[in-house]
């Protein structure tokens, strides 16, 4: 019902609105059609890749998977199917997965019945990049759900990293971030880096520690936005970790 309004307390451009806030705005709860479209755009940007992976995982051809991804988001833009989204019911991730399943089965039936005309709007999604990414997936007998989940986990970790980067950049510390980046998960070889950056090792350790903590915060917030409550964040993280 009530989402955390990160956008209200974050600096300008420092933080994206929380996903659930975006969903609510995309449902039309915001300030008119322009706002709704913008919110939907943000949603699509964040989540189309896992869905594309899912579709590819269902043994659809590249072309069909592209078409369906486009069609799914076109339908999301045109129709009101976000109306049924209810935060209280659970994870946004699950909602999207159920929605795409339904969508695919409906589309199949439509195709079976008869071909209908009507050009679809095309969204500027970089399928080539996504496909390169997909083909890097080990060619195992993974279920499409697993592929979706794994891509979701990867995108989420990358999203948090990008947010952290933006945060550093805004404070004029873009270069520092690039230097810290390899040390985010676990530091080694501090001496060389400290020398390179012209700071003491102790100082560098503190800086790395803060960046790490900050990453954890950003990541937890990103996860928090897709689940029901604070208490679910750890569980969701563990589930995502299991998928990797």
């Amino acid at each position, binding site marked *: 019902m009530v989402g955390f309004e990160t956008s209200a307390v*974050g600096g300008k451009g420092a933080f994206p609105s929380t996903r659930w806030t975006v969903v609510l705005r995309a449902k039309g709860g915001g300030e008119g059609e322009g706002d709704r479209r913008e919110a939907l755009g943000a949603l699509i940007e964040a989540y189309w890749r896992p869905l594309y992976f899912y579709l590819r995982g269902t043994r659809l051809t590249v072309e069909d998977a592209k078409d369906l991804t486009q069609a799914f988001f076109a339908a999301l833009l045109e129709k009101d199917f976000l109306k049924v989204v209810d935060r209280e019911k659970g994870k946004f991730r699950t909602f999207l997965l159920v929605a795409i399943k339904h969508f695919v089965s409906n589309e199949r039936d439509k195709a079976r019945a008869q071909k209908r005309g009507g050009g679809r709007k095309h969204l500027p999604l970089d399928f080539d990049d996504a496909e390169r990414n997909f083909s890097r997936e080990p060619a195992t007998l993974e279920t499409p759900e697993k592929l979706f989940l794994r891509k979701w986990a990867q995108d989420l970790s990358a999203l948090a990293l990008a947010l952290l980067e933006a945060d550093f950049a805004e404070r004029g510390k873009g270069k520092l971030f690039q230097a810290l980046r390899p040390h985010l998960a676990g530091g080694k070889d501090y001496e060389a880096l400290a020398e390179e950056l012209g700071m003491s090792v102790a100082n560098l350790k503190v800086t790395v520690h803060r960046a790490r903590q900050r990453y954890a915060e950003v990541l937890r917030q990103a996860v928090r936005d897709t689940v029901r409550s604070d208490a679910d964040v750890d569980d969701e993280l563990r589930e995502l970790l299991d998928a990797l």
Partner: protein
Amino acid sequence: MATTAPLCSKCGSALDGGSGDVCSKCLLKLGLSTRDDEALQPGQVFHGLEIERKLGAGGMGVVYKARQANLERSVAIKVLPRALSEDPEFTLRFMREARALAALNHPNIVAVYDFGEEGGRYFFVMEFVDGTSLRPVLDRKAMTAPEAIKIVPMLCDALEYAHAEGVVHRDIKPENILIDKKGRVKIADFGLAKLLDKTGSRQETKMTQTNVVMGTPHYMAPEQYENAKSVDHRADIYSMGVLFYEMLTGELPIGRFPPPSQRVQVDVRLDEIVLRALEKQPEKRYQTMGEVSRDVTRVTRPPSKRAITPEEAKSGKWDSIGYAVMMVAFMLAMAVIVKGWPWGGGEGGAPDARQNGAPAPAGKSEDPSAEIAARGEKLLKEDQPSLAFEILEKRIHEDPENQKLRALAVQAAGRHLEHIVEMQGREAGMAWLEPQLREKSFLRPLAERYAVLDTESTVQTLFDKGRAQSFKLADTTRELLAKYPQYYKVPCAAAAIIEKYNIPESVLSLYREAFKRGLPKGDAHAWEICLKAFAGNKVDDSDGKYIQEFAREFYKDDRVDWAQGAVELAGGFLYLHAYAILKERNHPKSKDAYFTALANLLEGHDSAAAQKTVLTSDASRRKRAHDFLAQALETKIVPETDVEYLQNLVDELAK
């Protein structure tokens, strides 16, 4: 092409999703508040304390129950996230703050016995409070206004004491208010918010503003958002205001909220107290906790001297009686929340519940069973089913064939059961009911409820445990159906849960099973959910007979519109069956229904089914379909893309 794939700088595995130098797994691990390899295991000895079990986990670390052998007492250990020890500044801060916390000594504050660092993990050893936090109590709306009014001054006093000692809590919220089995309230996690907050360090203030991981935004004072550094004790006063509001009304004061007295029946003087605590500017708020406490206490006093009975006068002040009675009632409510509470006369301290029950009628009754039945009924009316059940059950022992007593006992047990289920969950309800059913034959009517709870709980657990378990769905439902072959509610209950996870095949097959078991016409609720399942999912021809049943049941005159709406969901197929019934009843809407059905079919994605249905029907129906379609084609309501297809159909029908 590339022979050397880039590797994660942390774990050395091949990089995945393109996060730069670190793999997603290592990145995601950073987000966990406690890593699995950090957890203490039962039996493990930590700082000389034997770990018994994990009590909970949150952003501030993990709490365990442990045994302090030499003092033969239970303690709670809070172990802070390991990541903290990587911060060189934290050690200093920890030692400084922890000392201040350990110095606090107040009956309504959870005592800190010890603190320190072991193996890179910072911890507090604290008083173990055997009870619950206020959170489940509030979530279950199990607190009444008088209870809130009694508790708040105690909390205020504790906070006032801490403030005088220079300690601000900074994170007052229901999770941090503990209530033990004797009804005593204690505030936990004093000052931890500050200790763990990164605002202590310079430059990162902006970061803290977005730090919703640590704080609890709804209870936070506005100034805590704006500049967490300059927060003083008045932030606690604000949080206390939020908590008080929630305790009184069950709601949070968000946005433009009404004063408490508009939401619940409470003394209007409380409105002013709560609103003043909730002032946005600290200067306009109460300035000390003592003032809040004083004003609340003033409201609780009876407005004028009322007649006090001689007994009351003898035993002391009215207030203390009122308090005692209130606490007994409150503790009874708590009893259902705290698992394993020896309510109902266990050893040690549980009050004799009956003293709070309804008094027996004054005059001597000739028939003790009738008297007990009357008392039972009265208790039920007062919503005290457990007390009612207790006396009824005892009497049934003496008078086993008394039908009235048996019926009332079933009712009381049923309501008590629902209380438990609501408060503690299905498993707790079953745990209570199971021995009752075994020992008391008169409770047999509740056996079906047990079957339903078992079904719901088993199926839900499957999903809660995740994907791997949910694969066992088919086996599990089969087992449940075999275990309880006689109840139609069992498949319905399983279906209602599975439905949430969108597995239409299982849902439909379970409802089919419910039909076979003779879904009674009287159970409108079951019918409604069944109909929705059929309407929302794809059905096949074999479902036709069930759908006809539905239609017969629901197309009674007063439900026609509702049923039409529900049936339309299915895109027309059900409608044709419904049509048959409407026609049977000579319903004026039958013609519309038929046309709508056709239109839906042709519009929807099931045109193959439509074609089959229409083409294989009898002559008069074919004629009507032909006329309708021809008419539809003429009026151009048909989408252009469908014209050719429909024209063919019309030609076909004309043959």
